[in-house]
């Protein structure tokens, strides 16, 4: 695998006679600090840390020799705020304002890294990106989409240029005919990263083959799965890659207009995108006669307004057109009749971000990564009951086990692994036997889940599978656009049935009803939202049927999650201290001092206060 090709190259910005100008050269510095400026770190006060850092550097006259970069999400949100000091690739995590003077004094002045703040486990070496090779979390990862995230300052186009930014565009404009670009993308085997996994090259070809005239290129940045933030991080960390991909796409299919449709809930990403577009225009990467060629292309940003279904391409188009974001039947496909009735190429953020690399290093190189049917890498937002949470980019074919246990570091608190949920509300829950499933479109589908846009939630034995299924259907149900009957009515009925089951009011037929409704909704719904909404339920019924049956037949929730099925009792450990009695908000506990207390099950509202205040493990939950 030709990894060396993608390593940072600072020379050779002149590509086939086309010069990409760089504005300033970076001054000689001793240390380069990268501070994660992703949304999650900002919430954890990274802005204040930046300020304090600036003050400290000023105080010690280090401003000249230490450069500070803000980067997009580094993907280690669990350990944020993150700060990296180069050379040495020392990564600090969970830092606070108070830690800054110490880091500056010790590391920058005395060249002694502060051990207690360092993110540990420095044994794996990633030759793909040495810079991230120090930490196990990044060990099995392979960064293509996120290759620049954390390395460059996303608000500085020169930084992007220094990592071969816009070189792919220059190559395309000077050296390649549009058909060649399409065939390179086809050769790469890249498939859509938005969820369905449609071969990207074919999509490009369809659009390119439409009669010339007004055509559109759209970047779908309406990321909406709960817990997923791959696209946000990619845009926040490296907006130019996405833009470059789109411009190349425009050239390939004969379009001069691009639109990024991004959720209004991502203000930072929007800001960076706006900045990047302005800078790209200034540098002649966008606008009339790009880089002196006769190809013109410009990009405009359109905001969503809080509708998950707008991630579906026809709904997204309606939303850009200023209408209710409701899907329509296909055909015609957007490639034939899309935005404003014109041929339209829609890809999601991650797909676009792969394009420049494919052009630079070739479709063949790209197709060498991954599995037979699924090429390249995939970014996942790893969350849930796992030690390391954050963004993970791995080559296709990596197993779920590798992600959960090697990269994710396994389940915390000594709990047992129960399942991993992929594909967000459209995906399924896979239990232990599926852990060695390689991650690719076909294998995941065969296992009863989907790749989806890349959410990955780890579930341990403390979670109730019925409750989890209920959570996901509650989400899709509330995001159903309401157009087609199976999704609008059917998901509501599924939610009602699941609610009934979790409240201990289910009956055995309810499980059959869920399966029957689920199968119908999957096959009959108008769009992907409805067609995949039953997946979390169907897969949990398939893999955890016994939990459903326990809920229904024995009114028992083995994970102790479904409150209605819990009962609290006081056992012989009770010393009669009275703490539980005082804590009970509904006076359900009775007992004299220094004697064993009792809970009146008729009064108890199962709030669990007694359980948490008892110091003698005398309150039992079952």
């Amino acid at each position: 695998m030709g990894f060396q090709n993608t390593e940072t190259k600072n020379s050779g910005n002149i590509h086939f006679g086309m010069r990409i100008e760089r504005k300033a050269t970076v001054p000689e510095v001793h240390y380069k600090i990268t501070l994660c400026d992703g949304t999650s770190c900002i919430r954890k006060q990274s802005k204040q840390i930046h300020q304090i850092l600036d003050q400290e550097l000023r105080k010690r006259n280090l401003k000249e020799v230490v450069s500070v970069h803000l980067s997009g999400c580094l993907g280690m949100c669990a350990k944020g705020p993150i700060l990296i000091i180069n050379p040495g690739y020392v990564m600090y995590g969970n830092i606070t304002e108070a830690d800054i003077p110490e880091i500056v004094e010790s590391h920058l002045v005395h060249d002694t890294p502060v051990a207690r703040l360092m993110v540990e486990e420095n044994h794996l070496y990633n030759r793909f990106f040495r810079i991230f090779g120090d930490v196990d979390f990044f060990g099995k990862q392979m960064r293509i989409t996120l290759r620049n995230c954390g390395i460059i300052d996303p608000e500085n186009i020169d930084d992007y240029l220094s990592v071969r930014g816009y070189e792919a565009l220059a190559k395309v404009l000077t050296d390649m005919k549009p058909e060649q670009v399409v065939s390179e993308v086809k050769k790469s085997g890249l498939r859509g990263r938005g969820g369905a996994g449609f071969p990207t090259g074919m999509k490009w070809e369809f659009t390119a083959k439409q009669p010339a005239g007004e055509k559109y290129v759209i970047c779908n940045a309406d990321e909406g799965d709960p817990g997923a933030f791959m696209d946000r991080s990619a845009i926040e960390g490296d907006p130019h890659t996405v833009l470059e991909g789109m411009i190349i796409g425009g050239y390939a299919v004969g379009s001069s207009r691009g639109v990024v449709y991004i959720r209004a809930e991502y203000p930072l990403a929007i800001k960076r995108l706006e900045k990047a577009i302005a800078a790209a225009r200034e540098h002649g990467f966008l606008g009339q006669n790009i880089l002196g060629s006769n190809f013109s292309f410009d990009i405009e940003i359109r905001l969503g307004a809080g509708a998950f279904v707008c991630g579906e391409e026809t709904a997204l188009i309606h939303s850009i057109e200023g209408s209710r974001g409701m899907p329509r039947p296909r055909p015609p496909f957007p490639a034939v009749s899309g935005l404003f009735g014109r041929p339209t190429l829609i890809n999601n953020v991650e797909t676009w971000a792969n394009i420049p690399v494919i052009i630079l290093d070739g479709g063949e190189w790209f197709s060498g990564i991954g599995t037979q049917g699924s090429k390249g890498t995939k970014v996942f937002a790893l969350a849930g009951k796992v030690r390391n949470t954050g963004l993970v980019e791995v080559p296709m074919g990596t197993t779920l086990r590798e992600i959960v246990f090697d990269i994710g570091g396994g389940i915390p608190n000594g709990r047992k692994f129960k399942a991993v949920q992929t594909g967000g509300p459209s995906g399924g829950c896979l239990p232990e036997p599926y852990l060695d499933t390689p991650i690719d479109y076909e294998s995941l589908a065969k296992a009863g889940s989907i790749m989806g846009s890349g959410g990955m939630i780890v579930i341990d034995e403390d979670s109730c599978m019925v409750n989890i299924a209920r959570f996901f259907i509650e989400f899709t149900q509330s995001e159903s656009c309401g157009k087609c009957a199976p999704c609008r009515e059917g998901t509501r009925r599924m939610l009602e049935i699941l609610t009934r089951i979790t409240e201990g009011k289910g009956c055995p037929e309810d499980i059959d009803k869920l399966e029957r409704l689920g199968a119908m909704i999957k096959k009959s719904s108008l769009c992907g939202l409805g067609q995949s909404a039953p997946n979390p339920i169907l897969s949990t019924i398939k893999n955890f049927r016994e939990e459903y049956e326990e809920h229904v037949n024995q009114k028992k929730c083995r994970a102790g999650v479904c409150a209605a099925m819990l009962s609290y009792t006081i056992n012989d450990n009770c010393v009669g201290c009275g703490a539980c009695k005082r804590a009970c908000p509904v006076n359900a506990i009775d007992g004299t001092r220094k004697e064993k207390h009792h809970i009146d099950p008729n009064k108890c509202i199962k709030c669990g206060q007694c359980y948490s205040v008892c110091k003698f493990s005398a309150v039992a939950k079952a």
Partner: protein
Amino acid sequence: MVEMAQEKMDELRTFIAACMQKEYSDSYLIAVLHKAQELFGYLPVEVMDEVAQRMNIPTAHLWGVATFYHYFNLKPIGKYVISVCLGTACYVKGATEVLEAIKRELGVEIGQTTADNLFTLHEARCLGACGIAPVIMINDKIYGELDAKKVVALINQYRKTAQVA
């Protein structure tokens, strides 16, 4: 107050006029609604009427769009959203008295916003803080062990903070 509204309206008109210059001007409806909400905090009916007329978009279409997207508020939302927990524990411990006290103090019913746009009152299902019932949540903060008197004091505290800011 009226003048400010006028100024905001003018800003919106300028924004709409700019959108109308562009191709496929209808497609800027969502952008215009974003702008209107940014200016007014929500989408007042008079504003929607004017947007529809100026953009030459049927009012019903605009209404369909405004109600489809969760981002748009159709009623004013106060600076502080008070959610009163009416779960069993809170109910037993006097949540209704707390709720009545808030209603009296603010002069609003559930779902409404005070005239000064400071408070919006909601009811909530169990907030999971039964141990300190009755509780209310103001924006993201939870306050427990309240009674009618304490809650009024709490509201006054927020009023003061708002004045300072």
